[in-house]
């Protein structure tokens, strides 16, 4: 008969203390979660950077860590804002935790055509609120070529009604993130779009790429000659 008695007597103080500990524990865990999200976002980018370096040497779908279900497909830079991000394949939840991601079904980033990249508004794409018309964006595709884009338009849209027009074959880039930037609760239909078009002068191949192509030579010569 000691137990119920004990419990009863304990409940007043210990339970409160226990509850307080639990609360603090919960709080620490939640803050940890928040920190983890940001840490993951930062650390993953470092790992992806290595994977991208390998991609540039001609490998494809280099997984940044063995169990990753995504791989880098492009590199995005905004020198003005000191942004340097690795873009991952497939804009799904897991991939977005590690970096901005390329929306499947849109043109590959850094190629002619319209490419859409999505990123978290509070981690990788938080800088989008600082982007202005005319901001220069560079995108490197796996062949090492850089394409320069210039921001022409920013707008807020309702994602439930978003439609993609393919454009006229010009190289276009749209960066998407959630809007508004500073609400606490995630979700909601609004999206912030930054549209950028290729600056035509860079359509000319940069000399460094030219030399790289030269050195690559005919790597893909595969005689199929057993005929």
């Amino acid at each position, binding site marked *: 008969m000691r137990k119920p008695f004990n419990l009863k007597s304990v409940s007043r103080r210990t339970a409160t203390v226990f509850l307080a500990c639990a609360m603090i524990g919960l709080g620490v865990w939640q803050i940890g979660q928040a920190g983890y999200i940001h840490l993951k976002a930062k650390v993953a980018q470092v790992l992806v950077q290595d994977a991208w370096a390998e991609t540039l040497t001609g490998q494809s779908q280099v997984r940044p860590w063995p169990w990753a279900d995504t791989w880098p497909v492009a590199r995005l830079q905004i020198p003005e804002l000191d942004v340097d991000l690795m873009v991952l394949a497939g804009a799904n939840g897991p991939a977005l935790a590690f970096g901005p991601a390329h929306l499947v079904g849109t043109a590959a980033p850094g190629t002619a055509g319209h490419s859409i990249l999505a990123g978290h508004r509070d981690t990788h794409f938080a800088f989008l609120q600082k982007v202005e018309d005319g901001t220069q964006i560079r995108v490197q595709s796996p062949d090492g070529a850089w394409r320069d884009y210039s921001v022409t338009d920013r707008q807020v849209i309702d994602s439930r009604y978003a439609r993609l027009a393919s454009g006229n*074959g010009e190289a276009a880039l749209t960066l998407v993130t959630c809007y508004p930037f500073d609400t606490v609760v995630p979700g909601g239909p609004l999206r912030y779009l930054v549209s950028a078009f290729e600056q035509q002068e860079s359509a000319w191949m940069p000399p460094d790429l030219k030399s790289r192509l030269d050195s690559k030579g005919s790597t893909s010569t595969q005689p199929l000659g057993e005929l």
Partner: protein
Amino acid sequence: MPAIQAFKFSAPVDARAVPAGIIPPRIAAGCGKALTVVLFSLLTAMALLIATLVLLPAHSIAARAAGVPATQAPGQMEDEVLYGLFFPSSPDGMAFEAPQLSSDVRIDVTGMVARVNLRQRFTNPSDSWQEGIYVFPLPERSAVDRLVMTVGDRVITGQILEKEDAKRAYDAAAAAGKRASLLSSERPNVFVTSVANIGPGEEIIIDIEYQDSAVYRDGTFSLRFPMVVAPRYTPRDDTPQDRPETVDNSGTQTLRPEPAVFEPEARDVFGPVGSETNPVTLSMRLDPGFSLANLTSLYHPVDIETLDERRKVVTLRDGSVPANKDFVVEWRLASSNMPQAAVFVEEFDGESYVMMMVTPPVQESHPENLEGLDNHPALPPIPSRDIVFVIDTSGSMHGASIEQARAALSLAVSRLQPQDRFNVIRFDNETYSLFDGIVPVNADTLRRAQAYVNALEADGGTEMRPALLQALEMNTDAESYGADAQSDGRLQQVVFLTDGAVGNEAELFKLINEKLDSTRLFTVGIGSAPNSYFMRKAAEAGRGTFTYIGDPNEVSLKMSELLRKLERPALTDITLGWPGSAGKKIESYPSIIPDLYQGEPVVVIAKVGEVDLEALSGRVLVSGRQGIDSWQRRASLEQPSQAQGVASLWARAKFEEITDGLYLGRDPVAVRMDALEVALEHQLVTRYTSLVAIDDEPARPDDEALQSHEVPRELPEGWSHEKVFGSEESLLEPEPEPAALPAPQPAKSKIMPARKLPASIAGMALAAKGEAVQLPQTATPAALNAMLGIFFILLGGLLFVATGRRSNGFRDHA
């Protein structure tokens, strides 16, 4: 305090009674203070956060003030001009199979200048107001310069505006209920007509006029009209559930219509669909300037009416035709009449424009056919060549195309000469080459090449760039191997067989420009509707020629023509000398006349400006070189034929040359400015300009909504529709029983059939609202986590303080 007593008895709990017993009161008090401080700071943090939340709306307002467009209600967005790539529209991806469209084509040819009138009739069989959006092909070098909209007895002529301005004006008119029409160019050979506010049961006629020129080659003129506009493709009326669900998963945005099957038995909800639906009628008046030797339509049955010795009228025999082939007419002049030069003139805005065609002298050394070669020992030998054949074996070549390509390639390989060297490269998403490099022609290599070619199958993606790069470099390498290559005077050639279904055209042009060197690139277009814009441009950049093989029966003929060209050096360094032009500005295009191959004429279009034609009264001197021989020829300007449209063609040529500057690294802003000036002055629809026609008076009552619909083009075979019946509201209803489909449905007779358009078509119309896109959720719960964390710590801390106080109080009391 019995509770405390009990507390003291229970050993295990005692161990946890830290605040009460073990910690000295001073430390406990310190802890309390520390906690208070922590709590206070946390409270402050929280207050700050709450403040942020409360101030959020203010943030947004600031953001708006800073130029970020405000969020709009979806309903409003429909009418809003958005410059992004997104168009808000109804949440479903449905397009409607109406309004109906018929096309009527009239072509007038004078000499080699063609004026084409394309009349599109939009009718709206529904009982709601509609917007029709229609994507269609035109020849890639056409100069579209006129748009006229006719509604009842109102005739509105289109105005040329910068593309964005035109779109804005059109959207505004559409929103205001006015009848409006917009003609814009999505690509040089893809145009879009949008017509807003077609009333219930109403008909709107859109007339589009453009200028084109016949192509002269080997004594034959040919003129082409793309025909993928004819009858509406409708799904089969048998088992609808058997239809494949999806359409065009490839995601390629290139215009690449494949052969379409026209099914007379096909029907839709309005009843059977036969040749009477969406018909195309076509008639062509031809005045070649001289008497004709023959006149043929390559792919369509036609009736030819003879007006007099020279003039003919060609009409499609059946009035309307299946739309699976481009309409191509070829004619030859009676050989005695074949002029060495033809000159056409138009006065425009007080200035004279001259189009001139000069045929270079046929070199005596040219054998008319190769078989005759052996009989002419006096002929100089065919120069030895390094040829790399590149063949596209991507999935788009599947079927008849790959067969044609195989036949063409096999023929080309069989015509190689013993002194030649060659290689064969095939590509899909990978590039494979038959030999390691260029190999000499011998029995063994020829046998292997033939076996390789015959075994080719089409499958996979289209990665053209590596293949092209490899082919161009292979030649360069071969050249650098032996110094003999150059001294031999070897011709370096790349023959590229493809349907040109690529998206990265600009990139490929760049590559060609950079890597070409002394190599010449010859493109061969395969299939019923290849991307000839790309292939012509590629050949231009590669300083070779473009050959189009549209029909399996043509393979031998067209390839022989090409191979003859390959066996002869080109005519180079062609220059023009204008008489009496000293100190006067004569602007002629192409400004650098490309190398010419056998059978090709020199064609230039010049603006003679203020120079009086009379003053020129002399002859234009055309001179050039072939190998080591030079030649020259004079074209008389004295008795030119008048031909309407030369000015437009000149403007188109100038525009082309200006925009080609983009591939050569010119400043895009400067290019745009220059190009705009030309396009606006000559009323051309280009990538920078559109024609827009707007009625002054509103037609649609304010309280009725405008529905935007695409009018589908004839769909190539292999594409199928997901057909859903009913209006927008009834989309939610279950589909009617398949068995009920063929039967007329009186209740729905006025309701549009809706369906999903293939992405490649929907994507082409920028105005056509585009494809639905799923934007992912892009916010992490990090902020929420942090706030919850702070909240819990705060709560826990408060509880701690409370317990701490209480235990302290107890101790004090004891």
